[in-house]
């Protein structure tokens, strides 16, 4: 039975370890804090991790955690305080709302869903910053979301490794 990363698969995933979720989110935070020097097209790793866990584990990861992560990103980036918090809260809400639908699609259509979600959250941040008098940073600002969405299949495969690895392999068992 092949591993499939959507609900059509007959294979049952092992339950996720909360520690693993915490580690992936910490890694995403560190990745976001790497000195990227404003290169356009660098994905927002925290947003990507957030969408992933909101879609996969909507009962564990929610809007409150998204808000907290947003506040940390605001403080670390010295952005307008609350900008990422608002965008991530909305992103988490939309991901949770879409989670039951998204997982019935194969990986690439899932990535299209993710693209729309990430672009919408970026648009929200753009609107807030333009409202407070910042300059428009150019359309390359959205490149990060496109690349993040393109990475979605890879991220899904990598982050599900602990849940797809069985203790002992058995072809006739759905786990």
């Amino acid at each position, binding site marked *: 039975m092949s591993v499939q990363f959507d609900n059509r698969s007959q294979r049952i995933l092992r339950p996720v370890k909360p520690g693993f979720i915490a580690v992936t989110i*910490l890694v995403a*935070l*560190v*990745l*976001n*804090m*790497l*000195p*990227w*020097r*404003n290169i*356009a097209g660098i994905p927002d790793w925290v947003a990507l991790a957030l969408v992933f866990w909101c879609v996969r584990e909507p*009962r564990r990861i*929610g*809007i*409150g955690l*998204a*808000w907290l992560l*947003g*506040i*940390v990103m*605001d*403080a*670390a*980036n*010295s*952005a*307008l*305080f*609350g*900008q990422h*918090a*608002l965008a991530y*809260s*909305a992103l988490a*809400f939309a991901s*949770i*709302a879409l989670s039951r639908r998204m997982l019935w699609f194969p990986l690439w259509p899932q990535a299209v869903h993710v693209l729309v979600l990430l672009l919408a959250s970026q648009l929200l941040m753009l609107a*807030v*910053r333009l409202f*407070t*008098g*910042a*300059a*428009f*940073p150019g359309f390359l*600002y959205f490149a990060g979301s496109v690349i993040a969405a393109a990475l979605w299949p890879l991220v899904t495969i990598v982050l599900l490794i602990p849940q797809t690895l069985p203790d002992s392999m058995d072809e006739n068992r759905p786990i």
Partner: protein
Amino acid sequence: MDTTPPPFFNRGPAPLVRLTFFGLLAVLLMVLDARFQYTEPLRQVIALVAYPLQQAALAPVRVARATFDYFTSKSALEREIDELRARHLQVAKDLVTLEALAAENAQLRRLMEAREKWQRKSTLAEILYAGRDPFARRVVIDKGSSHGVRPGLAVIDELGVVGQVTRVHPMLSEVTLITDKNQAIPVQVVRNGLRAVAFGSGDGETLDLRFMAANADVQNGDLLVTSGIDGTYPQGLPVARVARIERDAAYVFAKISLVPAAGTDRYRHVLVLSQDSLLPPPPPEAETDKDRPSKMKRPRVRRDA
């Protein structure tokens, strides 16, 4: 009768309720930050929590830089030493003249009983990374309030003004570059002493000289230096060079683009100028208020008569 569901169905408030709550909280924070700047203490605390994460993220970059520096080839180093020696000679000549001039200047000032305007001290800092906020031009340097950096200090490199310290953490501080859209710097044209204010244009590479009359005496290639009348930037630091002027009779102001003199995106090391202004304090507000009504009154009387 107890009608509440058993606890294993209880999942707390509905998602929409949570979104509304956290969304409103975020909007409240944004208003407090943008309008009133009340959120600084909270930001400081969270930045302190995020500091170890940032250090963890910077560690591989530091290692890579150190390795690169270590393996810089011998010929490259020799070439750099030769260049530096040549520059040193040139600068030494200037320095001798400068010392003589400074002594002469000090003596003249004593004669005129004028006070020194500035007492300068500088802190060398390294640019750690550029801020990830694409809406603003900021860099983070490795000196903070524990090194005596305060908000408002000018930051320069070897070619001119880089920006101004806008936020200080214990170990780091943020410098807003002069190319930021909201960063204003008072300047003076070297050629004729014309004063103006330069603003970042928002594209991250150039500055605009705003509110200059269409017939103002500004030419392509003019060097602009800090005028020093704001009490923030010391006088005479190179800021930018005029790159393009558009004079259109349809507009009151000329559109003047400037290219910054300093390598705002290039260098790793900058100087933070910590200075104590020795200028006399500005006159108290009451006096200026007293002057203004008397000036305003005169035309009103005339109009009544």
